[in-house]
């Protein structure tokens, strides 16, 4: 099967400093990819390059067989992106916001309204569809953001910390949605710090550190390779952060003084 996404020699520098130092990866259709790494490792930059948001980079990136550098617009029509921060026009209501986003994808107004209401209802937001989002909690905004990224039924879904701020029920619901999207043949690129979720939903886990891929495989493969029990332990081992215990101890000591 042809890969649905390929990254060849992907580098990105800013101000003379490389934040991505040459990434070579390829993904197949229907895969759920857990993309993890410490803060500043280059996760969001990779996603923004693949989704055509950052246009200047070195190397080659192909999505759905199209070169991102040339066909960013075509690719954007067929993918969905849910950013880490709840970047949203808060002065709008969820209904207004989703209508605005839907129209940017050229979806019919009636279809947007119908789908929006149904999806908002699933997330218990139907009664708030006419309220401005400035008063919404982080989790409520995240739900609207999630709907806005999936409204056009994308083939590949990029999620950057999608569970951030969601309540327990919503987390379970989103995990279930992702699982069913996978069954429907969607490719999911999932970036998160919540290891147990990544561990449970991903077919393949990629760990990135300081702009380079340090591990790539299924959870069982990584576990076997590192000879450790959980993804959190594997992550700690591969990213070289072994001092959590002593840092935490020092932190509490400083508070006491």
């Amino acid at each position, binding site marked *: 099967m042809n890969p649905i996404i390929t990254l060849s020699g992907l580098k*990105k520098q*800013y*101000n003379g*400093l490389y*934040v991505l130092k040459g990434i070579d990866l390829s993904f197949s259709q229907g895969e759920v990819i857990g993309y993890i790494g410490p803060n*500043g490792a280059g996760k*969001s*930059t990779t996603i*923004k390059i693949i*989704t*055509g*948001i*950052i*246009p*200047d980079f070195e190397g080659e990136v192909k999505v759905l067989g199209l070169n991102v550098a040339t066909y960013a*617009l*075509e690719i*954007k*029509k067929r993918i969905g*992106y849910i*950013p880490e*921060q709840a*970047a*949203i*026009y*808060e*002065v*709008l209501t969820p209904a*207004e916001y989703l209508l*605005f*986003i839907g*129209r*940017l*994808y*050229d979806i019919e107004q009636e279809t947007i309204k119908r789908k929006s209401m149904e999806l908002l209802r699933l997330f218990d937001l139907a009664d708030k569809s006419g309220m*401005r989002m*400035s008063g919404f909690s982080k989790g409520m905004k995240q739900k609207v953001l999630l709907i806005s*990224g999936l409204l056009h039924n994308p083939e590949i879904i990029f999620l950057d910390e999608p569970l951030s701020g969601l309540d327990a029920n919503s987390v379970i619901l989103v995990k279930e949605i992702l699982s069913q999207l996978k069954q429907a043949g969607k490719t999911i690129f999932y970036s998160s710090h919540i290891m147990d979720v990544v561990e449970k939903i991903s077919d393949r886990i990629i760990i990135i550190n300081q702009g380079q891929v340090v591990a790539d495989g299924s959870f069982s493969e990584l576990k076997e390779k590192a000879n450790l029990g959980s993804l959190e332990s594997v992550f700690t081992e591969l990213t070289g952060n072994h001092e959590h215990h002593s840092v935490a101890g020092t932190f509490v000591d400083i508070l006491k003084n």
Partner: protein
Amino acid sequence: MGKLLLRMLSSFFPLLRKVGINDQQLFRIVEMKLIMDSRRTSAKFGRVSAQPGKEKLGSGNLNFILLIYAGTGFFFVSMIISNVNNIMLPMIFFNSYLLFMIAMTLITDFSSVLMDTADNQIILPRPVTGRTLFAARMVHVFIYLFQFGMAICLVPVTCIFFIYGIAVGMACIVTSISTILLAVFLTYCLYMLVLRYASEEKLKDIITYFQIFMTIAFALGNQLIPALVNVSDTLSSFSPGPYAYLAPPVWMASALEAVYINKWDALHIGMVLLSIGLPPVLFWIMNKYLAPSFSRKMAVLGTDIEAGVKNTSEVRTGSTKSVSERLSTRFCRSGTEESGFQLTWKVSSRDKQFRLQFYPSMGYIFVFIFIFMFKGGREMDTIWERLPETNNFLWAVYMPLYLLLTARYLVSFSEHFPSAWVYFSAPVIYPGQLISGSIKAIAIKYFAPALLLLFVLSFVIWGAAIIDDFILGCFLQFNFILIAGEISKKHLPFSQQPNTQQGSGQLIRMMLQLVLMAMLIGLHYLVLRFPWAIYCLIPLTGLTAFLHLRRLQNTKWPAITL
């Protein structure tokens, strides 16, 4: 009004397809932005506003600004009436003014909209090209500028209709629209030309310096046009100088003259073609050659990589104290006030929106001092020689107040206004101290250096006699800013959400502030007649400034506007 204009403009949108702009998306983005402009939120966190119902900045504010702009049009009525036989002269002045006002409004009030990166996360992941997004920003700004332009034109154009007839009146509408378009496209082209050669990381710094430069250039250019056109003592003998034909207002005036006297020689036809043809040419150049690289650079701004890399050079070790920390300890009376001081000091240097709106005002104060000091229609060297005999140093004394007022207004707004939750979660008893700390930071960071520089320049010209005037002026200005703070809404620093309508009154606000400053100068001028009075007023105004500051510092939560 904005929506109506958008609908009217949208009939031209299909033409934009040829330069790679999606007209449907363009319409939707601008439509949404106009909706958002009419709404605003601030960080309240469950607290009740001190002025309920007044916190929204709706169309009332915009209407007031439009009214002021329309009022300025009356200046041209007498000029038009007294020059019935010579349409050129009043129209050159009018179009110069229109060009100046629109370009300056764009630079002062709307640069932040052009450089807005808030859209990057929301719109750029969608199938929208950078070109379409850029065009949307431009149309969004143009809708406001067009309204301001029409307000300025209302009275003079009506006057033209009555005096010169329907044909000239209609032509005047066309040339006025052309002037507005020219001002917008010319300013955008200059912006993007400069930014084309700047790297992403330098972009924000360069644009702020460029704004100051543009402010000075446009303001001086507006003053130079009368000199270029050779206005002789008798207005009837007026004729444009040879270089005058380089100035766009002269093209517009010549085009109107062609219609009025029905003269269609090569010169007049050329002027008509230039006045109508240049705006679309500039638009084409802008979209074809300048917008793509600008959009690429804008896409990177505001992303985590930019922030992450840039912050690496700003690491400060905990052992050293920054300038603001040292100054706040010296000038503030409590931890709360120190916080307000440090936050304002640091954010005002780093916040892109603040810098984009505030930095042009630094250019303005020097331009206006120059204009006011050297006015009077005499030769420059004569004015310079006689300067020490005048009281024009008073402009230097009071012009820094403009910086104080502008910065005081702008520090209320921030894109990161929800961060103001910290004020509510911290055990702050007197939130007024956050405001007083903020005012102190502005005064020390912007007002004091400007006043000191102007004092040194004035000292060289007028000598030691002006020292007491500067001291009195300084105290009076502190009184002014503190009283203004007391009677207006008390917003906490960086706690209000900015939007386009809020930003759009900047230039006109400046003009009103100039009137207030002129009143203060008038008062001071009266005091100059009684030399002993100044020595009574210095301690008195010093004391009242101190008392006003104490009053502000003791302000409690119920008096704060949330």
